[in-house]
């Protein structure tokens, strides 16, 4: 009984989510206003996340480098492997996946609560009565802004992660700057970046569309906005992890 209810509920939400996407990708009412909204969203969702991503990337880069150095403390293993491991872990997982999970928390909760508040204060009804496709006006610019800006944030995170490791190599006795830089440049495959960007594009879509769905269908009051926000972060994170697994299986093996 519970299993049936759960499956029904899952399919109900998936169907409703895709119907909403259908509304989102209808021809916009006014291109000029949509363009303005996209720029606004890039500033608020993208630029607003740079500080947080910088701090996290620098420290994670430093910690990954330290942990790798501590685990590879063996004279038989070349020292450049520390830089190599830092680079690979950042390009393949830390920057695209971990940063996307962090952005799911930051951007996702922001989107769900913003749209949810608009729903319960009748601002979405106001748009509909004006004849505006509210889903397209509110959600489309967020998705486009994320698709453009999150890959940039991820590349920025890759560089800062490597830079965090570089700072550690300056002050750590277990490695040299030269060996770290050699490791960063060793056996570099451009496809790793392509793979990371493909994943990021999928994640960017999920980070904006799932919270938008939860916000758009919020019912009730302030408490429900909080619930929508929490649910959106949880489901976005789960979907990111599933997509990460599927894409890794498809692209790397």
């Amino acid at each position: 009984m519970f299993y049936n209810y759960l499956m029904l509920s899952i399919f109900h939400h998936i169907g409703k989510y895709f119907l909403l996407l259908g509304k989102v990708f209808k021809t916009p009412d006014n291109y000029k206003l949509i363009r303005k909204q996209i720029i606004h969203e890039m500033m608020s969702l993208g630029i607003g996340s740079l500080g947080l991503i910088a701090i996290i990337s620098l420290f994670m880069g430093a910690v990954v480098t330290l942990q790798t150095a501590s685990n590879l403390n063996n004279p038989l293993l070349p020292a450049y492997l520390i830089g190599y491991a830092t680079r690979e872990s950042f390009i393949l997982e830390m920057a695209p996946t971990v940063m996307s999970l962090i952005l799911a928390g930051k951007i996702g909760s922001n989107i769900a609560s913003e749209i949810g508040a608009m729903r319960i204060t009748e601002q979405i009804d106001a748009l509909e009565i004006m004849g505006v496709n509210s889903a397209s006006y509110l959600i489309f610019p967020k998705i486009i802004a994320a698709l453009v800006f999150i890959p940039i944030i991820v590349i920025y995170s890759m560089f800062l992660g490597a830079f965090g490791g570089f700072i550690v190599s300056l002050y750590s006795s277990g490695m040299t700057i030269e060996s770290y830089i050699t490791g960063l440049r060793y056996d570099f495959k451009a496809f790793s970046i392509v793979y990371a960007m493909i994943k990021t594009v999928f994640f960017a879509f999920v980070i904006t569309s799932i919270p938008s769905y939860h916000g758009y269908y919020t019912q009730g009051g302030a408490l429900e906005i909080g619930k929508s926000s929490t649910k959106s972060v949880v489901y976005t994170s789960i979907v990111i992890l599933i997509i990460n697994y599927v894409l890794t299986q498809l692209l790397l093996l």
Partner: protein
Amino acid sequence: MIEVKNVNKSFSGKQILNDVSIAFNKGETNLIIGASGSGKSVLTKCIIGLHEVDSGSVSYDAREFTTMNFKERKNIRKEIGMLFQGSALFDSLTVEANVRFPLEMYTKKSAEEILERVNFCLKRVNLENVNHLYPAELSGGMQKRVGIARAIALNPSYLFCDEPNSGLDPQTGIVIDNLIQEITHEYNITTIVITHDMNSVMEIGDNISYIYKGKKWWEGNKQEILKTDNKELNEFVYSSRIMQKFRNI
């Protein structure tokens, strides 16, 4: 003129509207009154198309609305202005941007022409020098007036007001009511006001429809409402002590 004919609406098997037929006249403030839960908000949402009717019809100046497709409805909605109970101003936009929004969305006017229209609408609702304030920086009455300015920005043919003076002090409430009536007469708009406030009824009720348990129970104007012998309506009208005293005078 907006005509509602034999409208029925139910949610999860519960009948909310039962064979409601009302004609809302042009150039008049048409009031829908009734107790909370009587179905007046659902009726309004059916008229605007936010809810689909189960059966019956809604027509705007003889244009059948219920059978229209999305695009046709969109064109009708451009002729509708709506003032919401909580004003529903876009809180991330300034007052000026709120009023400018429908103009930018649907007209090809230049920035100067739009600004001129925005200032005209704000002046019409007696608001000046508030262009750069955000809704959160305004009082409830000012927010309602910005809501009216936004609603009239596109010169609507139809104006809907959902409990326009709820949350306002009686004095400000009357100012808002009078403003709605003035605008209705001035621009010859078909205005529908949902309210359960007797001050509004007595102030602006050109044409009043009383909804009781999802049915249109009574129809008349502000003079007739005080003389009616309809039991349920009398219970509604004379529920407050002030109105009871007024009846006894």
